């Protein structure tokens, strides 16, 4: 009895501590989003004068200014970013799954070597090849094109690794053999049977590659300079530094908000299945 009460008090105490930590961290995470929204509602003069957590009334003015900016065509930028990010997400997940499937299901000479190789290159930072990459793309006249931003997504070692791990846990070989007995070709088996089975993994990797492509600045900034091709992060960099004469911070924050919003909304809608996907499919201990 005594022990039991002690245990209960301990548990209540523990819960208070745990919930406090969780609430604190959540507030910390939300704070910056909130700050951004508040800043987007304030005029340049208000922003310059100080700081507040109370929204002001300039939201629609800022929105109008941002949307109608003559040189920073935000709808166009969002469309460009959307095309690149969507294409990258689709290609990355599809081909990573295909590669992972190839390594997972088939026994072929050099299979171990292939796996080892991909594991090894997984760790190489993109910046290491940036210099040669830009040189090469310029030589091939592929700068000012979306191709060098989309196609490399086909070879994504990290996504491959994730897919491989996922398949190991959910994809029994019997299913594939059964499909073969039914006369399904290998490609058809992959497309119509395997892909649906790994849907959660695909969803997770789609959103992750979408987000990282949407936020990518380093390489696109090196390659794109035509106004009609610029992506959102390039536009934001340009907006921040371009013009001291028309430096309107309210507009800058509105741009940032617009840039994050699509990703944020998609994430919140999909968050349940994403977190489920990460938890069920991620690397197994």
């Amino acid at each position, binding site marked *: 009895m005594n022990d039991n009460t002690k245990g209960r008090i301990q548990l209540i105490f523990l819960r208070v501590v745990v919930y406090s930590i969780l609430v604190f961290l959540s507030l910390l995470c939300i704070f910056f989003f909130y700050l951004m929204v508040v800043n987007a509602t304030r005029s340049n003069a208000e922003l310059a004068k100080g700081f507040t957590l109370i929204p002001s009334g300039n939201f629609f003015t800022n929105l109008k200014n941002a949307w109608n900016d003559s040189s920073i065509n935000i709808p166009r930028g969002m469309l460009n970013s959307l095309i690149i990010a969507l294409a990258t997400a689709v290609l990355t997940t599809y081909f990573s799954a295909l590669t992972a499937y190839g390594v997972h299901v088939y026994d072929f000479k050099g299979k171990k070597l292939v796996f080892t190789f991909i594991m090894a290159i997984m760790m190489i930072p993109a910046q290491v090849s940036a210099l040669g990459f830009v040189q090469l793309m310029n030589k091939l006249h592929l700068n000012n094109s979306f191709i060098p931003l989309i196609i490399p997504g086909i070879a994504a070692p990290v996504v491959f690794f994730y897919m491989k791990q996922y398949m190991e846990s959910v994809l029994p070989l019997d299913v594939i053999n059964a499909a073969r007995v039914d006369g399904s070709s290998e490609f058809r088996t992959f497309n119509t049977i395997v892909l649906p089975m790994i849907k959660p993994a695909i969803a997770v990797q789609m959103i992750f590659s979408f987000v990282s492509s949407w936020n990518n600045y380093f390489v696109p900034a090196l390659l794109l300079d035509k106004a009609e091709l610029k992506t959102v992060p390039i536009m934001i960099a340009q907006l921040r530094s371009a013009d001291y004469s028309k430096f309107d911070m309210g507009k800058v924050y509105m741009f940032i908000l617009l*840039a994050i919003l699509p990703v944020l909304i998609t994430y919140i809608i999909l968050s349940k299945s994403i977190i489920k996907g990460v938890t069920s499919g991620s690397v197994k201990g």
Partner: protein
Amino acid sequence: MKDQLKPGKLKSVSYAKWGYIFIIPFFVVYIGFTLIPQFLTLYNSLFENYRVGLNQIGPNYVGLENYKALFTAQSDGTILILKYTANTMIMWLMGAVPQFVIALLLAVFFTSARLNIKGQGFFKTVIYMPNLIMAAAFSMLIFTLFSKVGPIQLFLEQQGIIDHSFDFFAYRISVRSMVAFMNFLMWFGNTTIVLMAGIMGIDQSIFESATIDGANAWKVFFRITLPLLMPIFVYCLITAMIGGIQMFDVPQVLTKGNGLPNETTRTLVMYLNGYLGGKNYGMAGAISVIIFIMTGVLGGVVYKMLSAQYKEKTSAPKYHRKLQRGKEA
């Protein structure tokens, strides 16, 4: 195709060519868009090759001169690339230690049946959110918060704690802390969720029997959870370390590329970026190769870990199935 399908001969071996076909796109793209650029970078590092205005100097083959220059000490004895490597690692550690401690704690909280946390979906969604924000935009926000006309400085001035000559960006510890804090906030949610997956993969019956044997929560954590979580924990740690070596956007935007104060927040990739901007392809190539070697060493460690794990999995399907069952329970 159909002709080959004879009962009893359904070994995957007969489909070997499909394995090759399925991995072709990956390798073609990898070679074209990554491997060749990497070799180009390596090749560049052996040349004197830069621009003065619009005049190209070189490329002249200089062997390892660029590497020699990189490792030549300044008059006061500092070797810049080592200094920047140290900056990078220190800032990474300052963010990664809390990141892993908190993530581990949260993962244990979330998976604890005893605590039975409510609203898990909400918390998990929220702690992941900072990962979505553009690093550059996040740095900008932090910059405005701590700038000389920012709210924090103003508040502290009003309280009389500091006077106006104080500048957050004049102190190594404060700027490095800002960088570390941002990296922490952007990544702790991600780590939490991956570690959680790891804990959930551990066979629940082990916990049950431990509790029946009278082990307390601490004992369970240190004797069971942590050892069994080790492979995935190390995986997280090393991928985070690789991410740390690439640190660029946050300190770049926060210090406007200046590595304030006194170059103590300049990272390796910022150093590389400086030479790229100056069109000094020789030096930029050499720095890239150094970064490559560093990650290569780390990558080797990861590979060792993961390949051991890989073997274990393929050779021990029973263990694997057990994990599956454990998860469903």
